[in-house]
């Protein structure tokens, strides 16, 4: 019986009821005045690159596992993308993959037919090359090509075709040139003068901003048509496209990209545990844990469109055989992932009961109250904690007969004032998860001693991890943190001080709308930060 009778009593006494419905109706105020900062130049992340190739040429092409590495800034790859360039090695990789893609596309009759609609009359047929590159170039660069740009690409193609004696071989050079171009690898969104005053993103730029935010991929033909018609520059036209896009399956990609980024789920690929201590560890565990988290979010945000804070409190979850064994519950399906309801007696619910949090925020040989507490504060509540001073030993004492449990060891650790200042903010919270070992499996005892997971978090008491999930869900910073993080992801940059009022306005809207994240995606797109910019420096 994993959960204590006291914990179950508290649960059954009604402490876990959703709080949103108990609050009085909330209405946000008027949109604050807003002055946009300068635009940023974002490089496609790896997943955006892959999705772009998938959407342009069809799925199934062989792509390298790594291109130029993504880097996180302010906790997000989406922000890091605007602060990074391409290394010499990266240039080589992008060049190499561009030619690989071109060859795969042009040697596959079906893929080739999708982009080559003319019949070349010679290896250097300029008219056919122009027709192909003009149509394809608009999709690859996400905007029409100028005559000058097209002339250069046609010249490359015909020269290569003449030299090699084959139109397709020549076209492969033109296609590779498109794919190596900064106009493909970067999102060049510089803005234009808004006739109504100030600067705004152009229709073509809005198409890219929308598609990479909502789909983590490039615009489709309908979106490019809307860009060309100017519809994306009007409220009504933009609303219509957003609503269409949110109904599209590709929104799942966008949701996965955002939460994978925010929650650091990519790190699960490198999950490492001591196999002598954690028998459940396998190469499948990390990816399975990520899939559980993302499927749950998909259900909450897109399928059910409900209060996203249930992400921390719901017992409904999607698991496979691997995770079912780890969580010690029946597997709902024989293959893949299925929906199940975790038993209350298991003491596990929500994201904070999942391996994607519990195993990732732990050491290879043990739990980590510090990592778990720090993650709650920094990732879920957007609080900034100072880094430890250089040279300071912050390690928690080893277990021994006098200090058999983590709580005992943390108590000693916090006696050191040089540690207590920061660790007091993390470790007592992390102790709430001590019933879950370093890989996320329930344990009744630690070194043969009972575990006491109770504590308080910013003044709110909790009995165990079950209750702690509710405390975090109800924390005044959680929903605004998710809102701010989504806004930063959409903009690809950190927020300037002058934008904080707008960020709060979006968060207020999220509150008003019952914490439905699907609504927030739309609200951010329709907001001024997404649509306007200052003059590029």
């Amino acid at each position, binding site marked *: 019986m994993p959960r204590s009778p006291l914990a179950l009593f508290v649960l059954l006494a009604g402490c876990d009821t959703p709080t949103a419905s108990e609050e009085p109706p909330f209405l946000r105020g008027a949109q604050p005045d807003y002055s946009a900062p300068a635009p940023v130049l974002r490089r496609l992340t790896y997943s955006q690159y892959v999705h772009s190739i998938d959407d342009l040429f069809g799925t199934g092409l062989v792509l390298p596992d790594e291109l130029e590495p993504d880097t996180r800034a302010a906790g997000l790859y989406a922000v890091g993308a605007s602060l990074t360039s391409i290394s010499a090695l990266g240039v080589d990789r992008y060049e190499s993959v561009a030619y690989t893609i071109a060859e795969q596309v042009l040697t596959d009759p079906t893929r080739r037919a999708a982009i080559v609609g003319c019949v070349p009359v010679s290896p250097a047929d300029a008219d056919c090359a122009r027709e192909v590159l003009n149509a394809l170039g608009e999709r690859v660069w996400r905007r029409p090509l100028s005559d000058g740009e097209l002339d250069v690409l046609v010249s490359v193609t015909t020269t290569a075709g003449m030299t090699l004696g084959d139109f397709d071989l020549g076209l492969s050079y033109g296609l590779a040139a498109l794919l190596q171009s900064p106009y493909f690898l970067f999102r060049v969104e510089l803005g234009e003068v808004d006739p109504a005053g100030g600067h705004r993103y152009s229709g073509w730029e809005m198409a890219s901003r929308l598609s990479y935010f909502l789909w983590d991929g490039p615009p489709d033909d309908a979106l490019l048509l809307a860009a060309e018609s100017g519809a994306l520059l009007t409220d009504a036209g933009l609303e219509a496209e957003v609503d269409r896009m949110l109904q599209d399956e590709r929104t799942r990609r966008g949701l996965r990209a955002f939460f994978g980024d925010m929650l650091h789920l990519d790190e699960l690929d490198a999950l490492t545990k001591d196999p002598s201590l954690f028998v459940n560890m396998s190469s499948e565990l990390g990816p399975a844990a990520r899939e559980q988290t993302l499927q749950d979010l998909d259900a909450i945000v897109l399928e059910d469109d409900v209060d996203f804070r249930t992400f921390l409190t719901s017992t409904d979850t999607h698991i496979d055989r691997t995770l079912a064994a780890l969580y010690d519950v029946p597997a709902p399906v024989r293959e893949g992932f299925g929906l199940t309801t975790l038993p209350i007696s298991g003491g596990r619910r929500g994201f904070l009961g999942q391996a994607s949090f519990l195993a990732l925020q732990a050491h290879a040989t043990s739990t980590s109250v510090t990592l778990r507490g720090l993650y709650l504060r920094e990732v879920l509540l957007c609080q900034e904690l100072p880094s430890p001073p250089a040279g300071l030993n912050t390690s928690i004492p080893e277990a021994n007969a006098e200090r058999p449990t983590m709580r005992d060891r943390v108590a000693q650790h916090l006696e050191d004032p040089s540690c207590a200042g920061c660790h007091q903010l993390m470790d007592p919270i992390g102790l709430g998860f001590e019933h879950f070992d370093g890989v996320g499996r329930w344990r009744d005892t630690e070194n*043969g001693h009972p575990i006491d997971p109770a504590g308080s978090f910013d003044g709110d008491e909790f009995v165990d991890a079950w209750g702690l999930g509710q405390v975090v869900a109800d924390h005044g910073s959680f929903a605004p943190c998710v809102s701010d993080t989504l806004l930063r992801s959409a903009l690809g940059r950190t927020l300037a001080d002058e934008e904080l009022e707008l960020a709060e306005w979006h968060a207020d809207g999220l509150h008003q709308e019952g914490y439905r994240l699907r609504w927030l995606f739309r609200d951010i797109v329709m907001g001024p930060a997404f649509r306007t910019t200052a003059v590029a420096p």
Partner: protein
Amino acid sequence: MPLRSLARFIALASVTLIACAPEPQEAGTCTLTDMPEVLVLRTLSFALADANGVSEGFDLDGVTSTEDGETGCGVADYTSPDGAPGIDNAFSRLEPALNSTEAKISVIEGLVQSAIDSGELLLTVELGGVDDWQTDQCVAGQVGQALGIPMLGTDGLLLDGQTFDRDEDIGVVGLSAGSISSGVFVAGGLSLDLPVQILNASLVFPLRDGQLRVELGEDDVYRGVLAGRVSAAYVLAVAKTQAVDPAVAELLGVVLTANGDFDDEDGTWCGAVSVVLKFEAVGAYFYGD
């Protein structure tokens, strides 16, 4: 290959012995609940007596037999680790003979373990109505078999808490008089025909009159023993069908006959041998339960 044939045969025979004990009892008042605890055996090996005459197991016949005595066919019983006399485990006496052949005990146990790890031999014990794993006078139990490809942990053993299909082709068999005392579940009355697939051999073994003991450890691993008796004639018949090396089969016939300590179910005098198997089990689930 003689070694593999004999080893396979004995592995099969060892499984047969799981459920050999006195007559099944009538169903009691204890019933399996909707969500019984399911255990799946992750190891199964012979419990052999030590040099001091100490052996795990049960007093299957209720008497303490001595060598050349009038009971137990003159085959001496052992003493349990906690000092109880009358432990029947005549198979233990076959160890020297077997180990003199290619069919060493360790080889047989390796084949059994392989069958478990590959999912060919997933024996399950279901316990219903366990209110307290220290003391519970009313625990219903049944033995069956699971189907599925098991997940193994980093220790090479079946992972705890995984889900299998119930093997509907064999009838689950209720254990009788199940109860827990001092943290140990004990029951008897097991009788079933168990289909076993080991090394591509599909056979049905009549399991009769078994007894079982299980204890839950602090590491959430269940440990226990199974004891019963097996007909020597049946074992030898199986040996013939499995093309065991004739010389080894002859040796087997000699030692089985010499160490028979029970009458078999056909009434053949001293035609059966008692055996004790020890096992480890972990919690499991069935799809759809």
